[in-house]
Structure formats: C-alpha cells, structure tokens
C-alpha cells in the first residue's frame, strides 16, 4: 500500500499526516505519532507530524515537510500530497498535488476515524466551526449536512487567545493550566474580540490576576463559540471537539460548562489539531473517481500599491537637555497604559531628566513599582519630589497607590505635553495631535492652546499600536528594531483594507500567502494603521498646520512617514514621543504646584505593601456580581472593579453640585408610576373618571391574565401606555427585571444574528420573562411614532419594527410561540389606527370592542401624562439654568440608551454624582417644530436627536453627549447630520456589551475637561 500524504496549512500552525500500513509508518516516520484511531473496517493506520508554527514563510515549512516525507519513503513509494487549509491552492500550484476544501477535509478525517460522530466542534487558529456530518466508512463516503462558521468574527478562535496570551507574557501552551488555577474569572465580553480585549485590559488595570483574566478569556471564547455557532443545538448525544484550541484545558472546561456537557459527551480525539491533514491524507481512500474539486478562477481585484515611504516630510524634534543634572526638586508623571507604563521625571523647569518605557504585561502595579525603583536608582538621595501626576487607564489605581497630586485623563495629559513641546521647540502652538497608543487612539484639535475638538476610537482598536505589534510578531519582524527600516525599504507597499483589527489580520495573512514581500507588507501595515486612524478616529475632521504625532506608535518612523505621505504635509514627532502622556501628567502636577505650593501627597518610592492588604470579594448588591478588589492603603480602603453598585462607587471628583433636579430619576419614577390609578383618582377630570369607572366595571368581566412585558427597547418611552392598556383591560403586568450584566449576556447569547446591543439586551428580557409564570408575552412592533410633521415618515428602525418576529423565530422562544402577542402598531396614524392595530391581535384580552377602545384611550392619556411630566420638569430645569447662568449636559439618543442604566452603565447618574453636572435627557427639551438640517429624516428618533442638537446649537451653555450603539444603522447617518445641527463638537459614546465603565468615563472626563466643565 502506497502511503498517502496530507498537509493542512492553518493560520498559526502547519499540520501533516500520512496514511498507510501501520508497520511501514512506524518504520518510516519514527518521530511522528501513530494514532490508535483508524478508519473502520481497514488495516489502514494514520501518523501525524508535530505541529509546526506557520511563521513568516509557510512555504518553506511545507517544502521541508514534503522533503521529509520524500526522504522517509522509498522512491515510487509515495503519492502526490493533498493540501488543505488557507494556502492550499497556492501550495498545490507550487509543489504539485491536489488542493481540497478544508471543511470537507476535516469532515472526511473525522468521519472515517470516528464514524459514529455527527457533530464536530472545531476551534482553530483563525476559525471556529460546527460541522454536521454523516459517514459511511465502508463506502469511504462522508456527507456534510450542515456547517456554521464564525465568518467575520474571530472571537471564538485560537489566534485571539494566542494574542492575549502574548499580551500577558504567557505562553499559549500554558493558558489552559493557568486558567484552571484561577478561583474566579474576570468578566470579559464574549462576542467581539476587540471588546473582549478592552475588557481584559481594564480587568488587569483594576487588579485582576493573569489566571483570572485567562479564565475569563477562556469563558469568553467558549461563550462566543456557543453564542455564534452552537445555540439551539443539542449535543447530549455526543460531539467531538477538534482544532488546536482543543489542546487548551481551560477552553475545554469552559466549553463543557457552557454547553452543560460531560467529558464523555464532548470528547477530544487523540490529535485534535490534525483532522484536516488526516482528511487530506485519506482524501482518495475508497474513492473510485476523483471527486469534483472547487477550483475557482478568482477575478483579479488586486489594488495598486501605495507609494514608497520617505522621511523627507517628517520632522523629528531634538531633546533639550536640562540646565542642571541634579536639581533639588523634581516632578514625576506616570502614564499607566494598556500596553506600556511610562514614567518621567522633570526638573523644576519642566525639562525631562529621565524617562522609562516599560511593558505593562498585565501587571500595572508591579510595572509601576519597577519603574519607580528604576528611577530611584538614578536620583540622588534627599531629592524632593515636589509633585506627582498620573494618567492612563490605570491612573486611579496607581494614583491612589502612590499618592498622586493630580490624576488626569490621557487626553488632557497628552495635549498638555504637546503644547509645551511645541512652544519650546517651535515657538508656536500645536494645532493637531495624533496620539496612537496601545489600545487607544486619539485626535486632539487645539486653537490657541485650548482643546476645541477631539475624538477617540469608539470601542474599536483598528488604527492602534497593538495591531501593529501583533502583526509584526506574526510576520516575525522585531517591531522596535527592524520594522521601520524594513518598511522604509519597501518599493511597493501593499494596500490592505481599512478595516477592523481582527479582519485586517486575516487580510495580511492572505496577502502573505499570496506571496507579498515582507517589506511591502510591513509598509502596507504602516499605511493601514494610518488609514484606519484617519478614517475611524479623525473621520474627516480638520487637520491643521502644526501636526504632532505621538504615543508609543510614534517611535515607529514608518508610521510617521505614512502619515506624511497620506496627508501630504509635514508631521512632527516630538522627543520622547512615547512618554508624552506621562510628561503631560508631570507638567500638570507642576502646574498644580504653581497654583499654590503645598507638600506632595507622594507616598515615597516604596509605596505601601499592597499585596498583603488586598482583598477580593464579589459584590452581592445586584445580579451583576462584580468582582471587587479592596485595597487598604494607610488604613484607607479603596475599592476597584465595581460596575454598578452604590456601595462601592468611586469618590466624587468635584465639589460642584447640580442645580437642577435629577430628571433621569424623575423620568424613571414617572415611567413606573401607576398612571391608571392616578387617572381614576379623585383629582381626574369628570370625563376621565367616567372612563375609568367604565373600565373598572368591564375589566371585572374578563378573566385576569398575567401579561409579560419586556422592559427594553421602546418600553423605555411607552411603558405608561402599555401598562395602563394591560391593566385597564383587567390584567396584570409582569415586567422583566432591570437589565443586569447576566441578563445582557443571556440576550447576547440568545440573539441569532448580530444586531445592536439594545436588541440583544431585549432578547435577554424576553428570556427572563419566559422563566416567569405568564399567560401572554406582549411584544409590540411599533412601526412609527407620533410626529410633529406629516411631510416625512417617522419610522422606528428596522430592528425595532421587526424585533417581535425575530424573537418569535428564535429557537429560545419557539416553545412559547403560542403565548406571544405581536401587534404591529402605527402610532403615527392616530389613536383610531392604534386601537385597530391592537384589536387585531389583542381582542381576546378585552371584554368587548368598546372596552378595548376605552383601554386604549386611557393608555394614551397615561402616556401623555408621563410625557408632560418630563416636559414640564425640563422647562423648569432650563429656566433654572438660564437664570442661574449655569451649564448643563444634554444626553442625545434613544430612550433605551438614555434611561436603561444597565445599558448606559448608569452614566446620567455618574455625570451628576461624579462630576456635579446638570444633566438633561433630550426628551426634556421643547423640540416641537425645531428645524433640522436634513430633508429626508424619516426615522423618528433621528428627527428628535437632530432637533435636540439644533436646540442646543443656539444655547452655548448646553453641551451634548450622544449615546449610540455599535452597528446602529440609523446613527451612522444621524451622526453626520447631528454635527451640522449642533454646529460644534460633541461627545459620542458607543454603548455595547462592555462590562467596564473605565473606558466610558475616560472619554467623558476628557470631554468635560476640554469643555472647561471640570475644575
């Protein structure tokens, strides 16, 4: 029997297998592993080679493998290889042989070795898949009945785990064992790896240990795999888990837990990573005729390359030496960031004496200690530390720990540093700052030294340093030493798409497989970061004349050159570009000292003994179950890690008090008020009393039912209507519980496709209600809303319009379909239409048609009362503000973003409590008839948002924060028009499945600083 040979070129590893006579395989391939699993009913055996990393040049490894096999077997004793995986076709062309589809190869490998298996779960380097197969080994036939793949999302696969492990300084092979050691898991968002990564960083910053983070990561990957591919499937009859990730014990355990399966039910074969290669090796076995293969002629769409990079338009400012080497007092600035921890030491004139750039590596406290001890070794004894400032995402933890005098957001720190450098070196003001750090990218626009606009990456890490870092590592290029010279030597830099970090990685991989030269890829990556940054962060905002490029990525001269090329103007890289945040923080400490000298709070280089005084516990205040870190520093307790609870909230950041009442609390109280009782009360008008009396009598004629109503989506503005309607019909309203982390997570997992976060949360509310004893579940489909103009439609977004039916089609709601009431309602068309719409579905709930009409009429009155309450409180608040000459923040957005604290992380409350701000929801503004700068705004929410922006445009004392969601279709346009409507910059906050408010508050703080709203 001639051995057959299969090679699987994966994204991270290359796997090979041979199939043939067992003794021959043992003889010829002693270093390979002979499997005891064999094709049923044959004496054929399979041996697999150790996995080889793909590295920068997969072809060389494939060539080695081919040579190895050729050398091991006698001439004439081997067949041409069968290739599968990402570069299969290119390999088949290059080395000869057959290329086959990798899912089919995988199915064949498993089907022949494990014919009883019907479900295959695969998690490889860049892929996660579920295959349903049926095998008949006697015929050598394996049929693929169904498959699901992760497609555009890389969250549930190995590359992502690998990246994160490297970020934590942990070897990929160790992840599983380390994760199993952790007592608790840090909560990491499951679906999008970019969000997961941010969560992970914030968990580290808040003190979670690497094993806890890794366990959280394994849970997230398993959850994501389950959420995207495995929902509604029953694997209790047995499934096989394959792919390289199946070697990771942490993920295996997490996946078994997530799916509720035992080790027998979800089993791991002998060589889980090799089944693609095994299928390729067995491709021709027991096949009479070679099967049709999928050779495709890909139309050429390869774009023209970028121009070569040059440094001629990059200005590198020289460092200025301090006037004396050993000053008697110094100022320190520490930037505790996601990728690096930077420490600077300035003399009394603000000249840089020392700077340190260290990898944070997931240990912010230890890294900060290391930096301080390195600095201490350089400073002469007795030197006075006159002031310390901290910045970066770990600013509060470290600031508290070391006793910082100033704790400030990164944006403020960066512009403070850049402004000083520009004045000192150029004698003029900087007007534009590009700051690209590890996870954050910022754009700051200044006018006469004052921040007038800025933008940060909205929950997206495309166009940040970590992307470059990961890609360089993947390409085997040393980012610090070799990347820039290599990229600058490229003649034809490749054009890579302007896209999400994770997708871009796949592009790079494909171009690499397509034979792009390393230098052209490196230069292409430099361009890609710049393109992503300009399109996703700057987004068409003006770029001025004095452009500073700083942050860790500015050390990369190739990126600076790419900026200059793309913008066609000079780009200035300041000295110590990577530590500008720390530099700015030190300057801010110096400025604070200048305002009134006082001794620094700095606790000294030793710092308190943190480890011994740290305690971790789980907050039980709500279902979020946050992991709280308690630090005791000099007897003062400080808490970290809370998401929501009142008990462990952060200390106030200002002494300012809001002068207007809490309109969000008022909205919530009015929303949940029993309006029916109020309407029927003595104070009601005579007509209403009669109506209510009639209702009471008729409601007594129906059998009371329990009607479930999800407190999600449009219920946040229409609850008074729905509750009154249900109760006026004589039934009981069963409201879903408030949005919690657990509920949101359930919703994310229950949603079939990838809608926006609030829609996912709504799925969670429905799931929660289905656990209750209810007779019906009322899921209304509002098509449109009342409007102040009939010239235009006033649609709800398509997701809102269709949500009841999407939920009805979901596997989770399948069992309860007969309970669903899904009226399609046109609020725009008036009450008669609304009543007709409701009657069609809800007639069985009412005693009679007239009873139903009365109920709808009362419901409408309740709704109007609710809206009037907020409008009148809003008018009063505006009056108070105007008379008091005070400023306020108006929150723009849809009701479910503005009023659901589980979605907005209680932002309105935090704005009031932490920053002492007056905060108004846009519904509190008198917007009737307000003109907008868009002639065809057919979404009701869009019209209202634009009206609110226009209203604020004429009142400079109203500042805007726009709450939106990742993937919100209407907002992708409304944001454009809102800029023209507002006539000035405002903050956009994207709310998603995040479980940390650190990122959100950084943006808010920077915005408030730039607006002069924080002292």
């Amino acid at each position, binding site marked *: 029997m001639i051995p057959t040979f299969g090679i699987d070129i994966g994204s991270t590893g290359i796997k090979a297998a041979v199939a043939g006579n067992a003794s021959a395989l043992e003889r010829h391939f002693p270093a390979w592993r002979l499997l005891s699993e064999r094709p049923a009913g044959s004496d054929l055996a399979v041996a697999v080679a150790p996995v080889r990393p793909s590295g920068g040049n997969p072809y060389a490894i494939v060539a080695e493998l081919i040579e190895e096999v050729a050398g091991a077997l006698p001439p004439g004793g081997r067949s041409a290889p069968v290739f599968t995986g990402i570069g299969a076709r290119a390999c088949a062309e290059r080395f000869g042989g057959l290329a086959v589809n990798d899912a089919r190869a995988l199915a064949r490998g498993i089907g022949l070795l494990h014919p009883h298996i019907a479900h295959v779960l695969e998690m490889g380097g860049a892929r996660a898949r579920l295959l349903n197969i049926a095998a008949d080994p006697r015929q050598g036939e394996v049929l693929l009945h169904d498959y699901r793949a992760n497609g555009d999302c890389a969250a549930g696969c190995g590359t992502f785990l690998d990246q994160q492990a490297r970020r934590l300084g942990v070897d990929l092979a160790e992840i599983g064992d380390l994760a199993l050691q952790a007592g608790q898991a840090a909560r990491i968002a499951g679906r999008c790896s970019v969000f997961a990564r941010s969560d992970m960083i914030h968990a580290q910053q808040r003190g979670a240990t690497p094993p806890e983070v890794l366990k959280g990561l394994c849970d997230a990957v398993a959850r994501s795999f389950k959420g995207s591919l495995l929902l509604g499937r029953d694997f209790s009859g047995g499934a096989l888990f394959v792919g390289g990730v199946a070697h990771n014990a942490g993920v295996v355990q997490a996946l078994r837990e997530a799916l509720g399966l035992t080790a027998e039910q979800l089993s791991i074969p002998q060589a889980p990573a090799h089944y693609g290669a095994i299928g390729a090796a067995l491709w021709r076995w027991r096949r009479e005729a070679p099967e049709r293969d999928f050779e495709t002629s890909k139309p050429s769409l390869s774009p023209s390359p970028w121009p070569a990079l040059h440094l001629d338009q990059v200005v590198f400012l020289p460092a200025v030496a301090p006037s004396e080497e050993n000053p008697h007092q110094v100022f320190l600035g520490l930037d505790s960031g996601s990728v690096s921890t930077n420490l600077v030491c300035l003399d009394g004139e603000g000249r840089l004496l020392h700077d340190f750039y260290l990898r944070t590596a997931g240990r912010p406290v230890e890294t900060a200690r290391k930096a301080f001890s390195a600095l201490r070794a350089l400073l002469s004894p007795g030197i006075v530390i006159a002031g310390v400032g901290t910045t970066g995402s770990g600013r509060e933890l470290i600031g508290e720990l070391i006793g910082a005098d100033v704790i400030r957001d990164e944006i403020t720190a960066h512009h403070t540093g850049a402004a000083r450098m520009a004045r000192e070196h150029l004698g003029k003001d900087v007007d534009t700052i590009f700051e690209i750090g590890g996870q954050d990218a910022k754009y700051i626009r200044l006018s006469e030294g004052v921040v007038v606009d800025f933008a940060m990456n909205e929950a997206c890490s495309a166009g940040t340093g970590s992307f470059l870092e990961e890609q360089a590592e993947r390409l085997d290029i040393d980012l610090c030493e070799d990347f820039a010279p290599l990229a600058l030597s490229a003649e034809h830099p490749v054009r890579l798409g302007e896209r999400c970090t994770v997708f871009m990685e796949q592009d790079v991989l494909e171009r690499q497989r397509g034979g792009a030269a390393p230098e052209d890829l490196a230069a292409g990556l430099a361009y890609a970061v710049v393109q992503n940054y*300009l399109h996703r962060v700057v987004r068409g905002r003006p770029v001025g004349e004095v452009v500073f490029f700083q942050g860790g990525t500015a050390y990369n001269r190739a990126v600076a050159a790419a900026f200059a090329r793309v913008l066609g103007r000079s780009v200035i890289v300041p000295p110590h570009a990577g530590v500008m945040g720390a530099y700015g923080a030190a300057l801010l400490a110096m400025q604070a000292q200048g305002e009134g000298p006082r001794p620094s709070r700095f606790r000294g280089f030793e710092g308190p003994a943190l480890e011994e005084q740290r305690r971790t516990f789980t907050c039980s205040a709500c279902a979020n179950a946050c992991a709280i870190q308690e630090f005791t520093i000099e007897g003062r307790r400080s808490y970290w890690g809370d998401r929501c609870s009142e008990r462990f909230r952060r200390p106030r950041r200002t002494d300012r008090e809001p002068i207007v009442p809490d309109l969000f609390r008022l909205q919530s109280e009015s929303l949940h008020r029993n309006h029916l009782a109020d309407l029927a009360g003595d104070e009601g008008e005579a007509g209403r009393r009669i109506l209510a009396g009639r209702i009471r009598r008729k409601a007594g004629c129906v059998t009371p039912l329990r009607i479930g109503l999800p407190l999600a989506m449009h219920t946040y503005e229409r609850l008074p209507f729905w509750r009154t309607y249900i109760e006026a019909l004589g039934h009981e309203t069963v409201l879903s519980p408030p949005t919690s982390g657990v509920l949101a997570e359930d919703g994310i997992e229950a949603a*079939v496709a990838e809608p926006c976060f609030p829609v996912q949360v709504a799925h969670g509310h429905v799931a929660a209600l289905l656990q209750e004893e209810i007779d019906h579940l009322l899921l209304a489909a509002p098509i449109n809303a009342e409007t102040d103009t009939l010239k235009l439609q006033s649609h709800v977004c398509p997701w809102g319009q*269709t949500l009841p039916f999407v939920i009805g089609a979901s596997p989770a709601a399948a069992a309860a379909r007969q309970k669903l009431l899904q009226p*399609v309602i046109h609020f725009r*068309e008036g009450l008669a239409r609304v009543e007709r719409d409701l009657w069609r579905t809800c007639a069985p709930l009412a005693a009679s048609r007239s009873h139903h009409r009365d109920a709808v009429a009362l419901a409408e009155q309740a709704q109007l009362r609710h809206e009037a309450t907020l409008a009148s409180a809003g008018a009063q608040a505006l009056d108070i503000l105007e008379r008091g000459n005070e400023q306020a923040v108006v929150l723009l957005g849809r009701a479910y973003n503005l009023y659901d604290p589980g979605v907005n992380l209680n932002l309105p409350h935090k704005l009031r409590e932490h920053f002492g701000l007056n905060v108004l929801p846009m519904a509190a503004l008198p917007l009737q008839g307000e003109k907008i700068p868009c002639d065809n705004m057919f979404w009701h929410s869009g019209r209202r948002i634009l009206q609110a922006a226009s209203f604020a445009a004429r009142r400079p004392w109203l500042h805007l924060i726009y709450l939106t969601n990742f*993937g919100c279709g209407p907002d992708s346009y409304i944001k454009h028009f809102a800029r023209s409507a507002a006539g000035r910059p405002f903050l956009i906050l994207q709310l998603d499945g995040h479980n940390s408010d650190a990122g959100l508050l950084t943006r808010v703080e920077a915005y408030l600083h730039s607006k002069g709203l924080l002292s």
Partner: protein
Amino acid sequence: MSGRKRPLDGRICYIPRIINRSSRLLAAALEAAFGGTFRIVPESDEHTTLLAAPHLNGDECYPQVLTLGDFLKVLESPDFDPARTAFFLPTSSGPCRFGQYGELLKQVLAERGVGNMQVLSPGFDDGYLGMGWKGLRYVWWSIILSDLLERLLLHTRPYEVHPGQSDALYEESLDVLCALFTDPALDGRGLLRALRRTLAASGERFGAIPVDRLRPRPLIGVVGEIFCRLNSFSNDQAVRRIEAAGGEAWMTGFSEWLLYAAAWDRIERREAGRAFSPGAWRSALLEALLRRDEHRLSRALGELLAARPEPGRVTELLELARPYLPPQAGLGETVLSLGRAAYLQRAGADGILDISPFGCMNGIVSQAIYPALSRDYGGIPIRTLYYDGSGGGRDEEIALFLELAAAYRRKKGKKD
C-alpha cells in the same frame, strides 16, 4: 423629477451602477424618456472607496461608499462642470438607510463647494411615479429587459460548451436594445414592439448556444440587498464564483423592487382605511400597467425561461413571508428576501444565498429569521454573505455552501 418636463436642461446626468452591466440600458431608457444625456458613473475601483472615505464615518453601508465614491470620481474628471452635471440617485422614505444616501450626497457636495448641483431623486412613496408615467414605463421596460437578459445569461453560461459565448451575446443584446431606446423614430408602443422583437431574437440566439446540461449543478437562489446583490463589484463577483464552484445562480432581479413599490402603496392605503382614494386607484393602475408590460416582454422569450419562473404577483412573496414576518412590519427588502427565499425553494432551488452589505439592518433581520424558514422548507441551506469591500475567503465559503446545496439536492432527490 417629471416626465413631462425636461429636468436636465442640458446637463449630463450620471446614474449609479445599480444593475450591473445593464445599467447602460437604464441610462438609455432615461435618456429616451427625459432627453438630455444620461451616463453611468465610471467603473468602481479602489479609488472609489478612497474618495468616499474622508466623508464617511465608516459605519455607513457599503453601497453608500460605492455610490458616493463613484459620484465623487465624476467631480475629479478634468472636464467636470457643476453647472452642466447632475446625479441620479433614487431615494426612499425609510426605514432602511438607502433613503439617506441622497441626503448625505447633498451634504458632501456642499462640503466640496458644489452644493447647488442637481440631484434627481425619484422616491418610493408613490411607486416612483415622480418620474411621470412615461419615464416610469421606460425605466420599467429597461429593468424588465435587463432582468430577463440576466436570467437567460445565468441559465445558459454555466453550461455553455464554448466559454464566453453567452457573455458576448448578452453584451451584444444590450447594445441593440440601448440603440432602440435612443432611436428618435421609436416612441411609446412602437418602442415596446421593437424591444419585444429584439428580445425575442436574442432569446432565440441564447437558445441556440451549445450547452452541456448533463452534469447537474446545484441551483443557488440569490436574494438580499438590492445594490449589493446586483452590483458585481460590490459582491466581489459572487455569481461568477458560484458558477466557478460548480453551481448555477438564480438571481433575484431588480424588477421585484418596483413591483413591490407599486403594490405597497396600494396595500398601505388599504391598511390605513383609504382603499378607495384616488391615490389607491392610481397605484392599482400603475401596478396593473407594470405587470402587463412585464408580461408582454417576458412572453417574447417563449418557454426559454420556463424553468426559472417569476411569481405571478409580488404579493405572493409577501404571503410566503407572512408566517415569519408580516409585510406591515418587515418593510422593504427584509420581507422580500424572506418571501423570495421560500419562493425559490418551491421553484426548485437547492440553496439560498443572501448577499447583503456588512451591517445591513434588513440583512441581519432576515438572517435571524432564515433558520426558522429553512426548518419549514425541508431544511434548505440558507446563508447570508456580508460584503464591505474587504474581500477574501469567499471562494471557500461558497464552495462549502455548494456542498450543502448538493447534499440537500441529493436528499430532495431521494424524497422525490
């Protein structure tokens, strides 16, 4: 815009590449109806995206990127004169984002200093009657012709013995039909008769192309967002990839949308209690007229497309979708994609591919409902492919999907 006036006033009007290569047929029809000069925007390429990007925030849908970028390309041409140029961009009143393209285009043109440029935007609300009866009928003819030719092409090309023959005939037929539209001697009924004759002749020639149908190919019904589905640049040549992987594509044509627009106007009026208003009569008349013209033209092909029939009425699709999503809630493409997927399965498709732009709201809703539809329709494989211009990896995905379609076909064969 109105068919009775000459809205262009000497301007050259550019139209986006809405319906693939046959957009030139649409341009010819518009020219015949309104006079003046209608041209298709230059071919989309990477420059398109680069031109659009500075004006976008990256969250808009992909057809927006391409239509905006292609229009901006016109602004870059050396002989561009804003006073002598106009853009044609149909609009809608929501709820899908398509209706915002025109608004954003106007904002961008203003930013570029040409805010006074003319943008012609016939709207959905009156079934596109804003173009006038004549304008709408001419446009309708061009769309029916383009759909029929496309169906002939896709039903022939995968099986042709001599590669390239079907494509060449397709282009040639387009040339002749375009010439008819712009022939000043032809108008109204005379034009329709000439179009019929030419189509019949093309049909005969398609029928005569030597084909080998012995080896069956999985039949893949294609649904989804209209631009992305029909514009081959935006879907990275999905149809050719389906064919290259061994399948035959059955593409949902553009005409469905216009029929839906006409029918929807009538249904909406009925729902709102205005079933007997003048507007409702007008819509019913329009719908009847469109269907009659469609019938006249498609009859010219005899039995050639008997294996790829269109539904009798567009409302048939809405009824097929109703168990999953009532037409009043799933406005526009969502309900059409669902209904069409069910229709195609009944008409013999072995698999359904939904081609939509990344982040498409309608696409995501349909995608969420497809599993339920598939369960009710014998487990037919249905997949959504999202496009955003980044490409990569589709061949493998399509090949794998064809594998499922082939397995479904075998299963179906056994049952039959």
